[in-house]
């Protein structure tokens, strides 16, 4: 029954972890909504991901007139751009900087809390099972029969060198 518990918890953890990873690593920003929030997956998408330094398209697709004039200025020598203009051009191409992208979120608290909640629920389920589902334990689990089993193991000299019977003092008839 312990194996079952571990398996159920493991599968729950795996699905939680998969959900967490898929949410955190792919923060998609597509400004090309047509009707509702449906994303056109056949066109290049923008991704903020550590391992994609140059996403498939720029972040801002529809530029205002001011943005477009800035883009024209970008075609000239870059030394003539002011610092604010360079930052504005950056923000046109990218949604987050690398430090912003890598900032830790508080999501781990949700994940750990969810894990504990599900562990608790599983514990309650196991408790209910042990009361209402499992059959009677065999008589060999009674203390008298367990003592008889131990005596038989000692008589058979199970692991007399380093293991079980090594801890029994045969002269005195007691544990060492």
């Amino acid at each position, binding site marked *: 029954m312990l194996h079952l518990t571990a398996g159920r918890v493991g599968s729950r953890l795996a699905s939680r972890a998969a959900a967490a990873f898929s949410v955190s690593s792919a923060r998609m920003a597509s400004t090309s909504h047509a009707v509702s929030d449906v994303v056109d997956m056949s066109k290049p998408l923008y991704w903020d991901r550590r391992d994609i330094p140059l996403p498939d398209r720029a972040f801002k697709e529809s530029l205002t007139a001011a943005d477009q004039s800035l883009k024209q200025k970008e075609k000239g020598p870059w030394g003539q751009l002011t610092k604010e203009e360079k930052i504005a051009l950056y923000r046109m191409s990218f949604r987050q900087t690398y430090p912003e992208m890598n900032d830790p979120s508080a999501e781990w608290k949700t994940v750990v809390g969810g894990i504990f909640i599900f562990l608790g629920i599983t514990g309650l389920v196991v408790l209910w099972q042990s009361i209402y589902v499992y059959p009677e334990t065999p008589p060999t689990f009674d203390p008298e029969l367990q003592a008889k089993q131990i005596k038989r193991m000692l008589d*058979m*000299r199970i692991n007399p060198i380093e293991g079980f019977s090594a801890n029994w003092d045969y002269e005195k008839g007691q544990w060492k």
Partner: protein
Amino acid sequence: MSLPKPVMRGLLGKRLRFHLPIAFTLSIISAIAFKYAVTEPRKQAYADFYKQYDSVKEFNAMREAGIFESVRPTGE
């Protein structure tokens, strides 16, 4: 605005030159530790056990305990 150019080459080599000696040393140390903490005491325990082992006496003790099916205790 003039940052130094980042290191582009030899990254794996540098990592290996740092980590491989450590890995080898730790492995060898753990093997030696296991040998002297586990296998040598175990060999000694077996040697000590069999120095004073009287197999006939042990057999008779087991026989009297009644665990064998081919030889019953001397009383029966």
